[in-house]
Each structure stands twice: as structure tokens, then as C-alpha cells.
């Protein structure tokens, strides 16, 4: 015969179950972690793995801080920014996070991040080991707003086998625009119908050619766009001519099918400008390859560098501990732990680029040391720059990109492109934010 559950028994059992569930649901506080800080980054299968040793080492060396890696998703694309903004608006952003190149000033202007000068001073953190070009992208209103976790200039990857076949000497520091164009022309082959079977070079970023011609995007005060000036127009002309006149670089039609990376891997592109992170794919090439410094332009030798901005959230309740995490991530040891296993990224510290783990890196059929040293030489010689630092850079960049599209399509002359871009950007610069 069933015995009915009495009311008291029910209350006892139910209450016990509730307490048990509450205890099970709580995260046991580790005795050593008194402060918890988090780091946000786009994430991904490879990146998540790459960060594990960094966080393991930090947590071991900082028993009073528990650091958590938080992949926000979205990839290195606008979706990540959207995820990050949602977190910031919701008040639960990571204490430290990666932000896209070119957005540091915008975040600083909007008080989303804090300057770290005081933390740097209090910690006695020397900044002189960082490459100046990387650190410059964090300077805004005479303050430093973050540290670089990595960053790579664009160098010239080349297919050594195609150069050998064509009997052309590999790129080196003697290359200027003339030699570069001659080589690209010699390395471009077409079928009977005139369609390019192999192209000599990738386009390179338009800003590289502008800088190499001696031009600028913004004036030093950031209040006027200078793309309508003659040096900038000369750079735009060279960029356009590679695609439209000489047809040695991919057209929009070519790039609709494959990226320059893919074309290079397929043996359809003899040279292209890429960051060291491109080694992630290029290492799989079945031909010998290497990298060289960018060619010398009429004005100077210059190329753009990527940066991995690491910034401190203004709403973090543990900013001191968060700065410790930022220091470690951007330290020589932190960068080594992350970069050494794959070798794809480029450290932001000069001392790291002299370490054997960096200089001795090899992959696939890399034919020389250029995949390490070309990038280092560019940055050591001061042949690199980042995007201009401006709080409205996303809008400025979009406005310029639209004009550059028209340039490469052959729909505008370099003069029209430069002047229209300057007009649009100047309107943005003078419009209320």
C-alpha cells in the first residue's frame, strides 16, 4: 500500500533539493582568485587554441588574478564590432579587448576606453621596446590608449619559382617603381584570347602607393584631407595603372573569384603584398616563396602596418588587474607564447624579433629568411605607418574606399578620385560628430 507523502516531508525534500541545486549551480571560488578579469577577441578555432598558453601562463604567474579569455565571435569583421558594441552598451564588456585597427581614436573620443599613461608609469612599464609605428597608432590627444599585442607591416611575397622561370632577380631593396613594374609586366602572361593566365603582382593597398609617392591622407592636424594634392594623385595614378593601363594586377572581375592570397597559392599571381599573417595560408604553397621589403617610391619607401590594438574598458571594475593582463598579453613572453606555435603573426616588440624563435621560423617551402626579416627591416627602418588616427576614421575610410572603387573600375581619373575623396572627407571632418 502506498504511503502518501506528508506535507512536512514534501517541504523538507523540496527545500533540500533547492539548496542542493543552488550549491551545485554556484561556481566554486578558487581560493587563489580574488579578482577576475576578462579579455575579448573575435576568436575562432585556431585563435582560441593560440590564446590558451598565454592565459595559462598569466594565471600561474598572477595567483591573485583570474584571467578569462572571452571569444566574442564575428571574426575579424564588422560583426565583431557589433558584438563588442552590444556588450559595451549592456555594461558587460570584457575588461580588456581587441579593437579594430583605426578605431582606437573613436573609442577614446567616446570614453569607451581609458588612457593607460598612469598605469604604465605606476607599473614602470617601458614602452621603448615596442615598435614606434605600432605605438603611434595608440596616441591620441597626447595620451596612450592601449598597447599592441602584435602587428605586421605589408611586405612583398613572391613566387620564387615563377621568378626563376622568367629569369628575373628576386625583389630586394634596390627595387623602385620602375623595376617593380618591369618585373610585374614580365611576369604577366595571357592566353590567346587576351585573358590573363598569370598576373605579375597584386594591387597593394592604395595608401601604400600614395605614401610612396610622398602623398598623405590627412594633414598632421587631421583636419584636412590631402588626397587631392599632386603627390597623392601620383600615387593613385600608379595604383590605377597597375590594374587599368598595364593590366598586371587583378581587376575587380578577377577578385570576384579569388582573393590575391588564393591567386598566389594557385600560382596565378607572381607577387602580392601581404602581412605576415598570410603565412597561415601561404605555408601550404607547393612552390618556393619568400618575402621582400616594399619597393621605393618617388617620395619614399613606405607600407601600411597592421596593429593588434589591446585596450582597457572604461567600465571595468578592476582596471589595475586588467592592465596587468594587458601588460602580459603585450609582453615579450605573452607574444612569444601566442605567436611561436604558428609563427603567423608579427610581434610588436623589437626584442622579440631578435629572438631565435622568430628569426629561425620556417614554413613550407619558404625559400629564405625574408618571411621573417623583410617585415622586421621595414619596421626597424621606419618604412611603415598605420592608418591615420581619427575618431571618424570608419566614415572617412568608407568615403575614400568608394572613390578608390571607381578608380580601379576605370570610371574616374586619379585627379577626379583624389579631389572627390578629399571633398567628401573634408565634409566629414567639418560636419558635427
Amino acid at each position, binding site marked *: 500500500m502506498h504511503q502518501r507523502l506528508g506535507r512536512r516531508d514534501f517541504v523538507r525534500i523540496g527545500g533540500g533539493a533547492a539548496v542542493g541545486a543552488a550549491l551545485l549551480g554556484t561556481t566554486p571560488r578558487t581560493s587563489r582568485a580574488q579578482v577576475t578579469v576578462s579579455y575579448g577577441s573575435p576568436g575562432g578555432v585556431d585563435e582560441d587554441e593560440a590564446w590558451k598558453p598565454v592565459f595559462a601562463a598569466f594565471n600561474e604567474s598572477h595567483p591573485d588574478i583570474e584571467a578569462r579569455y572571452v571569444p566574442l565571435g564575428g571574426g575579424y569583421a564588422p560583426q565583431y564590432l*557589433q558584438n563588442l558594441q552590444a556588450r559595451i552598451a549592456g555594461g558587460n564588456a570584457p575588461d580588456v579587448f581587441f579593437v579594430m585597427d583605426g578605431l582606437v581614436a573613436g573609442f577614446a573620443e*567616446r570614453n569607451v576606453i581609458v588612457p593607460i599613461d598612469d598605469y604604465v608609469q605606476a607599473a614602470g612599464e617601458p614602452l621603448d621596446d615596442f615598435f614606434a609605428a605600432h605605438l603611434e597608432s595608440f596616441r591620441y590627444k597626447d595620451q596612450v590608449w592601449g598597447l599592441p599585442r602584435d602587428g605586421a607591416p605589408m611586405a612583398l611575397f613572391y613566387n620564387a619559382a615563377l621568378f626563376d622561370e622568367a629569369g628575373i632577380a628576386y625583389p630586394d631593396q634596390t627595387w623602385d617603381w620602375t623595376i617593380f613594374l618591369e618585373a610585374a609586366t614580365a611576369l604577366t602572361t595571357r592566353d590567346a584570347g587576351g585573358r590573363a593566365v598569370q598576373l605579375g603582382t597584386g594591387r597593394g593597398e592604395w595608401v601604400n602607393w600614395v605614401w610612396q609617392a610622398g602623398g598623405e591622407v590627412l594633414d598632421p592636424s587631421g583636419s584636412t584631407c590631402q588626397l587631392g594634392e599632386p603627390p597623392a594623385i601620383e600615387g593613385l595614378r600608379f595604383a590605377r595603372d597597375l590594374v587599368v593601363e598595364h593590366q598586371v594586377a587583378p581587376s575587380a*572581375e578577377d577578385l570576384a573569384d579569388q582573393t590575391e592570397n588564393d591567386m598566389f597559392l594557385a600560382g596565378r599571381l607572381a607577387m602580392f603584398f601581404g602581412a605576415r599573417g598570410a603565412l597561415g595560408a601561404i605555408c601550404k604553397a607547393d612552390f618556393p616563396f619568400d618575402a621582400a621589403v616594399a619597393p621605393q617610391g618617388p617620395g619614399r619607401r613606405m607600407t601600411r602596418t597592421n596593429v593588434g590594438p589591446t585596450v582597457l574598458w572604461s567600465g571595468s571594475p578592476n582596471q589595475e588587474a586588467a592592465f596587468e593582463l594587458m601588460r602580459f598579453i603585450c609582453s615579450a613572453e605573452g607574444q612569444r607564447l601566442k605567436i611561436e606555435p604558428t609563427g603567423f603573426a608579427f610581434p610588436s616588440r623589437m626584442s622579440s624579433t631578435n629572438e631565435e624563435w622568430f628569426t629561425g621560423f620556417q614554413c613550407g617551402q619558404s625559400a629564405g629568411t625574408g618571411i621573417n626579416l623583410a617585415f622586421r627591416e621595414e619596421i626597424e627602418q621606419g618604412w611603415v605607418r598605420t592608418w591615420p588616427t581619427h575618431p571618424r576614421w570608419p566614415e572617412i575610410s*568608407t568615403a575614400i574606399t*568608394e572613390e578608390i572603387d571607381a578608380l580601379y573600375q576605370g570610371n574616374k581619373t586619379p585627379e577626379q578620385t583624389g579631389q572627390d575623396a578629399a571633398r567628401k572627407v573634408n565634409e566629414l571632418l567639418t560636419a558635427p560628430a
Partner: protein
Amino acid sequence: MAVMGLQRERGVPRRTSRMTLRENAAGWLFVLPWVIGFVAFTGGPILTAFVVSFTDWDIVNAPRWVGLANYRRMLDDPQALAALKVTTIYTAVSVPLQTALAFVLALLLNNPIRGVGIYRTIFYLPTILPVAAVAVIWRWVLSPQYGIFNYLLSLIGVEGPAWLASTSWALPALILMSLFQIGGALIINLAGLQGVPADLYEAAVVDGASWWRKHWNVTLPMMTPYILFQLVIGLVAALQVFVQPYLMTQGGPQDATLFFLLYVYRNAFEFFSMGYASALTGVLFLYVVLLTLLILRSARVWVYYEGQQKG
């Protein structure tokens, strides 16, 4: 007697009122989940967006009231007007094409031919695929060098355009892509065709109507309510296209595929201008309402409802 009558009148309303209240309460309880969901996830955000459109809000800081400044800004924003133009052209071309194609296909698939179920399934399948997956597939279909479209054109000696890389062909390419997802309209048309009374066709045959006359004078008028429905639904959907340009062209080349919602997205999440983006969506809402009202107004002329007498 009068007292008894008063007593009856007093007693009956009280019982009805209680029952009515109970029934009303039960009804509200049943719809409450939907109402809560609507308020929380639709109505509330719509109202919030409307309020935000009068502010300067960069998401990461508190909004600042600016009145009509965002709406005035739109009048001087050539990109906003260009985006509206692109979206309108896309809508004006794709919606009638989709409606016509869905109607013709439904006519064909309404015949008792062998394997008609398989054909209906085939035409409906693209509709159930996720839009993002379809966009990725279509990028390859429209590849200038390796895509199947240009390959088929090459077989007849025509050099295919650059499609998504061409300022002239990028928008037509997206319009073409939209024609492959008419499965929903197809199903609705099929249902409509099967609801056309057979005696109307019989009467037409007796009167000596040809195939064309039968469909022009019987099928088409009877189907006009369904066509109206598809036009309205298609219009609302087309004016809000976002995924395809976002994944396939990012608005390029040279803003040839800069759809309005893509421009809204850019302002909201890339330019830190959520207030302006909200104002843009407000204008889009009014635009959708205006065009919908125009279509509904025109329906008085060309839509026929069974049993309706038209003078």
C-alpha cells in the same frame, strides 16, 4: 409582475457579466504570451527606435536629444538617397517579376501530370534554404570566370558580364537571384488556382473560350486577390533586403548595391550613429506604408473578389 420583471432583469445581467468576464479573462490569458512577446521584442523596440531617432546616440554612451536633426541630415545625405533609389529599383523590378513567374509556374504545376509533386518540391526547395547559404552559393554561380551562368552563356557565344564586380550588372544579379526563391508565392498560387470554381471554366468552354480566353477572363480575375497579397508581401520584403548585399557585395561596387538597410546597418554599427540609423528606419517604415497604401488603393481597380459586383 413589474417587480418580478425587474427581478429577472437584475438576475440575468449579473450571470452574463460574470461569464463574460471569465471568458474575456480566459481569452486574454491565452493571448498573453504573444502580447508579452510582441511588446518585448517588437512593439517595445519599435517605440524605442522611434525615440532614439530624435537623439544623437553612439551606443556606447547615453543618448543626447537633438530633435529633428537626424531627419534634416537625411535630406542632405546623398548616400541615403542613393540607397533609397537602389532599393526602389530592386523592388520595382524584382517584385513584379517574382509575382509573374510564381503565377506562370503555378499554372504549369496545376496540371495533373506525372511527377507533379516532385516538380513542386524542386521549385519550393530553394525557399527553405537559409538566405546566407544561398548567398554564398550564388557568389560562385555568378563568378565571372568560374560561374555556371557565364559558362552557359559562353556555350552560345556570349561573353558573360562581371556580375557582382560590375557596377551595371551587380543589381540585376541580385534581382536574378531573387527569382529563385519564389516557392512561397508558388504554393499560395497553387492553392488559389485549386480554389477557382470549375463551373466557371465549364461555362467558358460552353461559350467557346480558347485556352487564353479561359485564363484571361476566369483564372486571372479569380487570382487577383492572391496576386495582391504577393505584391504587398513582396514589396515589404524587397524594401528590407539586407543579407544578400551584406554577404555578397557590401554595397559595392561603387554603391551599386547599397541597399537602404545596409546603409542603416553601417550607420548603426560602423559609424557609431544609432540615432541617425533609427531615423533612417523611420523613414523606411513610412516609405513602406506609403507604397503599400498605393497598391491597396489601386486594388479597387484591378482586384476582383468572387461575388463582387463592379459597375
